[in-house]
């Protein structure tokens, strides 16, 4: 488990757009921090910089005690759930969830055990042999979450994971995510533009606007 600390983080794109301006945040261990704000306010960019998918213009990001500014995503011990789920369409649900473990050369038995465990928590055991296109939106969402939790990462990153679901399912998944966080006690950063979602999920809510933290 780990804390995340962000200091004076800036992001300027090549075209001159200044997306994130001097953002400083301390995310404590086991905290569920929600970044909320209108679209284009820099919240997703901030998250992507924590993930290592976006280069940092200036500032510092620490996960635990380590400065991760120049670490590639694979070495940061994080997991991310994307808005469009980003499930690998050619792999079965099981292989989708096992991929991260396989890349890290876990033993076969261990992979099996962890995937089973995650599938059980999320109630997707019967779906393990299916391909993503045979799943409903809610099921895909669960698989995406499952793929994140099998690795027991230090930090979860969520990029508007519920915005592609219908209203009813969204409420249900919100409750489940909340319960999941209580059970796993992993530090999480959650990006959304939905204020209700922010209020119900977060142990702390941070509002961003025009690249600044409000």
């Amino acid at each position, binding site marked *: 488990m780990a804390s995340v600390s962000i200091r004076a983080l800036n992001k300027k794109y090549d075209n001159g757009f200044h997306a994130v301006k001097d953002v400083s945040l301390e995310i404590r261990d086991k905290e569920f921090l929600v970044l909320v704000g209108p679209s284009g306010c820099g919240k997703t960019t901030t998250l992507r910089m924590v*993930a290592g998918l976006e280069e940092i213009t200036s500032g510092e990001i620490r996960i635990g005690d380590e400065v991760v500014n120049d670490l590639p995503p694979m070495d940061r011990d994080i997991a991310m759930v994307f808005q469009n789920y980003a*499930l690998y369409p050619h792999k079965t649900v099981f292989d989708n969830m096992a991929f991260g473990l396989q890349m890290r050369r876990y033993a076969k038995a261990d992979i099996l055990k962890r995937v089973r465990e995650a599938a059980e928590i999320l109630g997707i055991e019967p779906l393990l042999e299916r391909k*993503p296109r045979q799943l409903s939106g809610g099921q895909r969402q669960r698989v995406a979450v499952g793929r994140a939790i099998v690795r027991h990462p230090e930090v979860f990153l969520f990029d508007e994971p519920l915005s592609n679901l219908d209203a009813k399912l969204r409420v249900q998944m919100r409750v489940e995510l909340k319960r999941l966080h209580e059970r796993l006690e992993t530090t999480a950063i959650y990006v959304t533009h939905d204020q209700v979602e922010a209020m119900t999920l977060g142990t702390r809510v941070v509002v961003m606007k025009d690249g600044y933290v409000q």
Partner: protein
Amino acid sequence: MLIERKWKKWVYFYLPMALFILFTLFPFYWMAVTAFRPDPELYATWRQPNAAPLWTLHPTLEHVKGLLQTTAFPTWLWNTMLIAIVSTIISLICGMFAGYALARLRFRGSEFLGTAIFITYLVPQTLLFIPLADIIRDLQLGNTPWALMLTYPTILIPFCTWLLMGYFKTIPRELEECARIDGATRFGAMVRIIFPVAIPGILSAGIFAFTLSWNEFIYALVFMASADQKTVPVGVVSELIRGDIFFWGQLMAGALLGSVPVALVYSFFVEYYVTGLTGSVKG
């Protein structure tokens, strides 16, 4: 109302469709009929009594036999196959990496490079064969299959690169980002995630490259001199037209047999091919 619609469908859909099919398939039919028509019938004038130019009542295999026995057709077929397969593989591998780089990596001059590759595709072969012939001669590759295996990719790589670049761009970036967070390097994510997802695109590029090199004429005509090194399109034309005598039956038999492998390849992959060209990946 319903009846009128049915009537309209016939006029606006089935009839034009039938005409279109007739128009596109007639040359193939003509080729097949000519290949199986005995010589006396072939050279009879249409004004003769009992003339039946559109069909034959005495099908014969003499042209096919003649083709296989008097010419090096089996060798041509083998040459063509080998050259087409090797140059397709070379072009696909280069095209996959180049297409990926142009679609995903941000580096200085990437757009210029993309355009430059496209422009090389636009240079007509009828001009390009002159400098290429010089190179082939310097490398002493003339009259060997390598002459074609190495020159076909000059047309095929730009083509494959562009087709695959377009396809890679339709694959959501997140797939790759997720793979990188999952622990793959950029190269690993490309090979394990992007390439398998792009299989329809890769297959259609492959089919296209295969067909282009199968049908290629100019390079094969210029770089291959001896009869046993020729490819089907060149061999059939150069050996079966002697002076002003056209061996129509054997020519058509050669065309027919020569188009069979391509037709087979198409029919195997046609579904992939269509999805490849329309390019759709759903998350």
